């Protein structure tokens, strides 16, 4: 990068299925105030505001314009971003690019979703190709069901393995005061939950949450002057696939699909040989349990077909050698426009040692985060505690 970029503050709302007490601007404002307080900054100091949410999920366009009093963007330079589930990470990525370019020193990035207010299922069907896919489109469950089905058939995993992911996420969420689904569930509970589309059961899927996250990025000089615990953005990577390229569901594919392509490029940038050793914690985008197992493999935390062994052996537990989603992840909280940003912010909290009850016990110096946008593309962000890490 042309200039080093640090995360110097952030904040989030409490995430929940119902936020009847606030309108969208007020909910966004909660996260923005939390981020400014964390960074010990005022809104006047911010040069640029980047706002992102899932396009038309609340049935409103131009959210950057009409949430201006909530976001604090009045009179400032600003950009609205919509890239699907990835959008929160894209907002951070775009913010980091703006700082790295030298044109901006202090950038506020915001991701939000008030899912209860819109017809999200109907709008999500608009993601499907109108010529070929939309007449069959439902919401996201079917996508991940196909993924799980392929995973079981090819690798010999069982429903118990997805149940382990379901339990890990919700038990971790119980340690995260901001998480939505703080469920004290067992493997048996997950296996007995309602079947939605085989092999996806109710507890295999993320909830529909309301919430927001905001982060403040700054250049090196500002970060060192203003922050006691800056967290450095070391590398970012994105890659796209095509909607009808079915390889992403064929878990045995040897083609370079988006997740593997982006991870490979990011690792080359940083000189990573063994990501499971290089990174101390992972925050990944797993709207469904099976997606987490596939991420293990796509990220190279294990070999192909070995993802379900990692969860079986407890390696990705909060106190395991490769902690994945100590926050409870997307499976526990999915306010979509904020979800991918929450991955980056939660990873930053782990590096700062500020994650509270869900802080992983081992020393955290490097973290890796991922996002899904329509499952055809990804944004990955690698963070570190110092510029020497």
């Amino acid at each position: 990068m042309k200039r080093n970029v640090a995360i110097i503050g952030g904040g989030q709302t409490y995430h929940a299925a119902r936020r009847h007490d606030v309108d969208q601007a007020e909910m966004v404002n909660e996260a923005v105030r939390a981020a400014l307080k964390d960074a010990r900054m005022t809104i006047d100091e911010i040069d640029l505001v980047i706002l992102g949410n899932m396009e038309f999920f609340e049935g409103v366009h131009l959210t950057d314009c009409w949430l201006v009093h909530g976001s604090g963007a009045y009179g400032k330079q600003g950009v609205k971003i919509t890239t699907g589930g990835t959008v929160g990470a894209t907002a951070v990525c775009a913010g980091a690019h703006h700082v790295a370019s030298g044109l901006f020193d202090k950038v506020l990035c915001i991701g939000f979703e008030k899912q209860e207010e819109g017809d999200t299922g109907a709008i999500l069907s608009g993601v499907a190709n109108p010529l070929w896919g939309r007449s069959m489109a439902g919401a996201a469950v079917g996508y991940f069901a196909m993924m799980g089905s392929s995973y079981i058939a090819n690798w010999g995993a069982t429903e118990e393995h997805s149940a382990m992911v379901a339990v890990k996420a919700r038990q971790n969420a119980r340690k995260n005061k901001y998480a939505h689904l703080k469920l004290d569930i067992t493997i048996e509970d997950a296996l007995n939950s309602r079947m939605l589309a085989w092999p996806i059961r109710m507890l295999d899927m993320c909830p529909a949450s309301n919430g927001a996250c905001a982060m403040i990025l700054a250049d090196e000089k500002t970060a060192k002057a203003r922050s006691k615990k800056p967290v450095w953005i070391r590398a970012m990577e994105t890659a796209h696939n095509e909607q009808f390229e079915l390889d992403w569901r064929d878990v045995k594919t040897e083609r370079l699909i988006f997740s593997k392509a982006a991870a490979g490029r990011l690792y080359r940038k940083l000189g990573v040989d063994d990501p499971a050793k290089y990174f101390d914690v992972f925050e990944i985008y797993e709207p469904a349990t099976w997606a987490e197992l596939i991420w293990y493999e796509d990220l190279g935390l294990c070999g192909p077909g070995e993802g379900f062994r990692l969860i079986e052996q407890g390696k990705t537990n909060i106190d395991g050698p490769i902690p994945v989603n100590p926050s409870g992840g997307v499976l526990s909280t999915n306010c979509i426009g904020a979800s991918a940003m929450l991955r980056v912010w939660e990873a930053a909290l782990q590096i700062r040692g500020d994650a509270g009850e869900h802080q992983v016990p081992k020393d955290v110096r490097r973290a890796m985060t991922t996002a899904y946008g329509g499952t055809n593309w990804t944004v990955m962000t690698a963070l570190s505690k110092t510029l020497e890490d």
Partner: protein
Amino acid sequence: MENKTEYKPFEVDQHLTAHGNYWAGKAGSRFFTSLRDKKKLLGSPCKACNKVFWPPRSVCTFCFGELKDMVEIGPLGTVETFTLVTYSEPIQPRTAPFIYAVIRLDGADTGMAHFLDEVEIGKVHIGMRVQPVFAKDRKGNILDIQYFKPL
């Protein structure tokens, strides 16, 4: 002019229907219940900026201060700008002709568009004084003010 093709261009018809329900929040909830139950209009004052916002809000657009109080504004107001709509489309809320006017309520610093009825277009002018006509069956909607009319 359409491009010439060796095939007959084919069109695929698709529809999306999306419903929304919007929580009005800290300021909006008080505004709509007051309008529905008392026919009283509320604005949000910012003491630091010496401004009163309509529609109400809980954060000052200008200084980012949190706005917790609300004050009664209007019901009389002033036309700030207006137009006569003379074309009809399915998207229009009414059949033409009808008048749109931006009304600034007394005591408020910002205006909002609404309908202006019971007036000949030739008599409408910027600065015209107007009053709201409230709906009899009010539901907590901005159309609980059916329209404005001249004093």
